[in-house]
């Protein structure tokens, strides 16, 4: 199958892209194309206009301002993976990116595309959820910032209006001594995760957990944080019952069923991966 007919636009500035999006009917934004192009090839989507963001240079690149990292929406996944500062400040990002498709698709795929496409199994929204990232959105009418917890509105439906463009995502890396882990189960290397788990654990001088973040992808429509488990881990002894309590919370999440895995199977895997991710993050934090 081939892409359906559409009119192609390749604006050079964000302002021009926003003007197009504000005036055209049935327009689709093209970022890295690693999800949209298959949908076009199979004619799952039939846009009248495709607005290509690949020549909008101002949307690409990573900036580190003081304590905050800001990645432009068109920053390639491969660029994030190779970025030495990011690898130092948030090593979990590289660990998760290794699971995002294959290096050939990461050469094109973008962080903004991952967030806007919002596949339930996508790893990057899960990592961004760990950091309580903020997604920057613009339209011809103005700009707004959406906290990641308010980002998912349903199956592959982000909190984004038809005339809006994701311009960037920003987050604050953890400063304190901490460990990380990103684990996922997929049928083959590079496939969509059946379940993926990201975990950050910060320890105090006595190796007691003082901050925790656990997020899961592939279970619900968007990334899910295990808020109660995180709360319980803080200040408590990090032992087998504590890990099991977090795993039990993961097993109680409402999990979707699809062609590849039932909800019950996902719940079971979620528990296993949460326990493993916690252990790994804790060991790394202790160093």
């Amino acid at each position, binding site marked *: 199958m081939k892409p359906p007919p559409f009119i192609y636009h390749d604006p050079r500035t964000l302002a021009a892209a926003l003007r197009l999006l504000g005036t055209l009917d049935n327009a689709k934004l093209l970022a890295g194309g690693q999800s949209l*192009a298959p949908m076009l*090839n199979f004619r799952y989507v039939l846009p009248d206009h495709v607005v290509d963001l690949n020549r909008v240079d101002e949307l690409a690149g990573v900036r580190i301002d003081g304590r905050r990292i800001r990645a432009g929406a068109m920053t390639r996944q491969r660029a994030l993976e190779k970025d030495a500062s990011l690898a130092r400040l948030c090593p979990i990002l590289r660990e998760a990116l290794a699971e995002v498709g294959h290096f050939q698709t990461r*050469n094109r795929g973008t962080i903004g595309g991952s967030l806007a496409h919002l596949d339930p199994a996508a790893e990057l929204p899960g990592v961004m959820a760990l950091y309580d990232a903020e997604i920057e959105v613009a339209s011809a009418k103005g700009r707004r910032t959406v906290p990641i917890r308010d980002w998912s509105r349903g199956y592959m439906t982000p909190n984004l209006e038809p005339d809006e463009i994701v311009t960037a995502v920003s987050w604050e890396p953890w400063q304190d001594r901490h460990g990380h882990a990103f684990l996922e189960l997929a049928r083959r290397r590079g496939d969509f995760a059946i379940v993926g788990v990201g975990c950050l654990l910060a320890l105090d001088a006595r190796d007691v957990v003082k901050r925790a973040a656990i997020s899961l992808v592939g279970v619900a429509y968007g990334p899910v944080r295990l808020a109660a488990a995180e709360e319980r881990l803080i200040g408590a002894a990090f032992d087998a019952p504590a890990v099991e309590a977090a795993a039990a919370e993961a097993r109680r999440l409402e999990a979707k069923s699809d062609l590849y895995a039932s909800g019950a199977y996902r719940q079971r895997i979620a528990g296993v991966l949460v326990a493993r991710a916690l252990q790994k993050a804790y060991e790394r934090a202790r160093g």
Partner: protein
Amino acid sequence: MDKRAISLTVNGRPVTREIETRRHLADFLRHDLGLTGTHLGCEHGVCGACTVLVDGEAVRSCLMLAVQADGREVVTTEGLAAPDGTLSALQQAFRDKHGLQCGFCTPGMLTTLTAFLRENPDPSEAEVRDAISGNLCRCTGYAGIVEAALAAAKRMREQS
């Protein structure tokens, strides 16, 4: 029909064509330029057979529009050998180590591994396997392919 004129370099040669903007790069290479070495297996980015190099980076040519290659440098499997036909070290290793059976995945394997070995000239076997995780061999001939990649890496290190 929405059309555009594009100019790019393909295997070292300048090319200018008017194309439909919905045409993906793989179809442009195969149908407009007759470079049928680039194969199409799945057309949704899973099989890797259509992998080409765009500005030196391995990408799926079925997931990129030809119009997006305007001004870029594209190398297909036809462009890997020297102009006089001498095979690249990687191609020669595929021949020596029985790295191809039916040959359908071969163009994607070669372009993928060409880009990979440039970045990682001394890979472990596990790294080679990871690099070709996005290239499906329907003959399941991975053992020969991995062996060829490792042999080519060794040969290239010795030559450099």
